[in-house]
């Protein structure tokens, strides 16, 4: 009811900016960047692993901020934002975990290692899944939204504690201490540029999908309102 490709809306402008950047990113990842000597061609998974990890973390932050503001002023817009971010966040966290696993196998020879970042992402994945489950199992109406908001706020406060406790845990039991991002310290300038373009494109895509999901949530709320008001 709002959005066709012909109208000049925020979503369409965003799409218009995102698509070319993603196109450039894909060209850079597959054609332009030189192959890494030690890690081989599968190192290119790095260029999709890092942006998805970053956007997954961003969505946890958005869930927390939306939840906090909803608890304070009970404006349902913020709750829609939090719920949408939770959904997109689960998908991005799953993508991060899967790409991390597929990267780990040829590099380290194992599917999983209790590296601090991977462990934190796994726990954040569980928290986001718990958030979505709570939203769907909780009673409809403001009470259910409040429950979700409480979990959202607690999740963000918990995330750094989980990260640091896992870092201490891994230093106590040294094993695979080299995380995927450790290589960014010694990145070639070309690789760094490709990574930055990829991150920017991915983030814009994330914002676009989030906005679309948010619009859909608001439409659903309008339907509910119309139903209750007009019977």
């Amino acid at each position, binding site marked *: 009811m709002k959005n066709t490709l012909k109208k000049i809306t925020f979503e369409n402008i965003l799409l218009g900016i995102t698509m070319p950047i993603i196109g450039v990113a894909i060209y850079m990842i597959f054609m332009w960047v030189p192959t890494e000597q030690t890690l081989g061609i599968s190192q290119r998974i790095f260029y999709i692993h890092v942006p998805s990890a970053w956007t997954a973390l961003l969505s946890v932050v958005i869930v927390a901020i939306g939840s906090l503001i909803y608890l304070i002023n009970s404006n349902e817009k913020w709750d829609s934002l939090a719920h949408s971010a939770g959904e997109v966040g689960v998908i991005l966290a799953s993508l991060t975990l*899967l790409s991390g696993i597929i990267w780990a196998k040829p590099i380290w020879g194992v599917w999983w290692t209790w590296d601090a970042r991977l462990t934190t992402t796994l726990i954040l994945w569980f928290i986001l899944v718990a958030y979505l489950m709570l939203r769907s199992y909780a009673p409809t109406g403001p009470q259910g939204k409040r429950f979700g908001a409480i979990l959202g706020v607690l999740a963000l406060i918990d995330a750094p504690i989980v990260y640091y406790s896992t870092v201490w845990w891994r230093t106590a039991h040294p094993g695979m201490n080299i995380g995927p991002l450790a290589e960014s310290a010694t990145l070639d300038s070309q690789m760094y540029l490709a990574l930055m373009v990829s991150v920017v494109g991915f983030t814009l895509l994330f914002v676009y999908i989030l906005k679309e999901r948010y619009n859909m949530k608001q*439409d*659903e709320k309008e339907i509910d309102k119309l139903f209750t008001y007009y019977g």
Partner: protein
Amino acid sequence: MVKLIKLISGCLLGLCLVIWDSMSSITVAEFQVTSPILSYDHQIVAAAAANLPFLYAAYTIAWGIFFIYIIILSRKQKQIREELKLLRSLIQDKQIETNSKCLK
């Protein structure tokens, strides 16, 4: 608008799958051609090529996840739009009815 993303991600997915098929056969050929005593260049190419399946698996999964999510989203969006349209027309009819009753 979502159709455009669908189109592009579908093309990319298709591209990935096509390239995977064609390249995996080339990879096998590479290994068959190299001799037991490999030169340094061949070693790098062989090592690089050995990880190709992982690279393609990762990118196929990534685009696959996005593709599937966008399909689900656009279906839901269509449903919501139709429901809203229906509701709005029903409300309009009801309002016209009540207005004409008031006038009488």
